[in-house]
């Protein structure tokens, strides 16, 4: 497992060529960088991720890993799945086994690995997602958040270079979001590049190294502070400006925040503010 650069160019994706969901979308997931894919519901975020994962064949355009194009043959898809894994939003769409450990073993077994290796991979994936204590529990007794993390573990056990997560934090409370983000950080240390889709602009701002906004059937990609500060783009995408950017920009005008990049969340904003009144830096 090592970081790889996953990219798509000129992607036309959809069921109907006359009205594709994506039309000429391009996206690059630089190796080892956190990419957040933003977009309103129905904008095509999920379609884009499914196309990148090989689950959906584009009508036109190419998906590449380190520049090598994905072929949609049986062998081509098989090779691609070992490098790129997609975790769907609803964990019940991926968990088919009654036992957590058995479910996670499904992917590695399909790779044709020997039993010993599979066992080690299952243990590793469960530990990375901090769900090892659930190994012997039945899937149907888990909470929604637990099922979401087990579904991610199922993909992680395949040791993908790039992990695509569709709305991994949707429906989770703040502490479950924090646990998921901590797990993703451990995955990065294990050399998986992580991409997540979300419509939470505040989360994207504080988590991502780069953001890609799906808007008008195309993708606009760039640095978080640039893209998420572009009110025209955000309005077109039916998204909001993150509060930290809105408030931070104004506080900088007021001379209360130092130069450099704007703070991305409440904690760093508070840290950057002066301690006493009347001492703007």
């Amino acid at each position: 497992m090592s970081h790889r650069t996953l990219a798509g160019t000129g992607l036309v994706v959809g069921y109907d060529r006359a009205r594709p969901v994506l039309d000429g979308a391009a996206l690059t997931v630089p190796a080892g960088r956190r990419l957040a894919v933003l977009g309103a519901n129905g904008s095509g975020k999920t379609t884009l991720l499914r196309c990148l994962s090989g689950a959906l064949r584009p009508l036109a355009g190419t998906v590449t890993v380190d520049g090598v194009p994905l072929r949609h043959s049986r062998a081509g898809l098989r090779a691609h799945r070992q490098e790129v894994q997609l975790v769907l939003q609803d964990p019940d769409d991926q968990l088919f086994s009654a036992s957590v450990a058995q479910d996670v073993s499904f992917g590695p077994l399909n790779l044709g690995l020997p039993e010993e290796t599979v066992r080690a991979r299952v243990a590793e994936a469960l530990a990375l997602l901090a769900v090892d204590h659930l190994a012997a529990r039945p899937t149907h007794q888990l909470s929604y958040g637990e099922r979401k993390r087990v579904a991610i573990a199922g993909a992680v056990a395949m040791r993908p270079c790039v992990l695509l997560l569709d709305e991994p934090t949707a429906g989770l409370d703040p502490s479950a979001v924090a646990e998921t983000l901590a797990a993703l950080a451990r995955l990065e240390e294990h050399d998986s590049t992580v991409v997540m889709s979300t419509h939470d602009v505040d989360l994207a701002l504080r988590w991502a190294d780069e953001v890609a906004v799906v808007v008008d059937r195309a993708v606009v990609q760039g640095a978080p502070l640039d893209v998420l500060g572009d009110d025209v783009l955000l309005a077109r995408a039916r998204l909001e400006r993150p509060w930290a950017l809105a408030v931070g920009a104004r506080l900088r005008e007021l001379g209360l925040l130092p130069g450099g990049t704007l703070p991305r969340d409440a904690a760093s904003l508070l840290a950057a503010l002066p301690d006493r009144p009347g001492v703007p830096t």
Partner: protein
Amino acid sequence: MSGLAIDDAAWSSAWRRRSPADKLVLCLGLVVCALALPAWPGSGLVALTATVLALGPARVPPRTFGRAVRWPLAFIGVGALTAVVQVGGGGLGWAPDAAARAGSLTAHAVAGSTAVLLLATTTPVSDLLPALRRLGVPAAVVEVASVVYRLLFVLLDSLRTIREAQTARMGHSSVRRSYRSSGALAAAVLVRSWDRARRLQEGLAGRGMDTGLRVLPEVLPSSRAFLAATLVGLGAIVTAGTVLA
């Protein structure tokens, strides 16, 4: 909270980590004793053993075990009564040996039911399915059964929630409305089940499902002590059941 009390008990039973094969030997042994030995004292011994083992070492909640027995008891009661009522002479009457026959029938059935319940409350269904494979059931069938086991909880959840939503909107406030609501409920759950299967198929394709739903079997090693105790216990029941009869 999965909602099926016996299943919950099985997953949290103290015997959960015991080898399913060991538990099958014990429980099927008890079932055979319940069927083959004379009702007294054989059936009594089987029912007592199964109940004591379940509530004792296996730590099955007594409430769950008690409630679960009620179902077969209802059938056994009605069935045994019907069996010993005699038709003849233009009316109904008791068969000559009615009490003895009803007692024997009930004893056999209660003993058998508690023995199966011991298995059911200590062993999740998913642990038993690999045993079917070893008995020669084709892999495809066992995989279908394992999907049934996973999906039935998902669908039961939908069933309960839809029914609650219908009730809140007065959908079960009369017999007629209740029928119409139940028809809509059944249809909605059927559509959900197809949808679930289709989505699961897509989800698993991404995880490399080519041939089947192969998973790593859990290692639940057999215990010699448990098997030895089982054989000694079953031997004792058979001996007592035949000698004392």
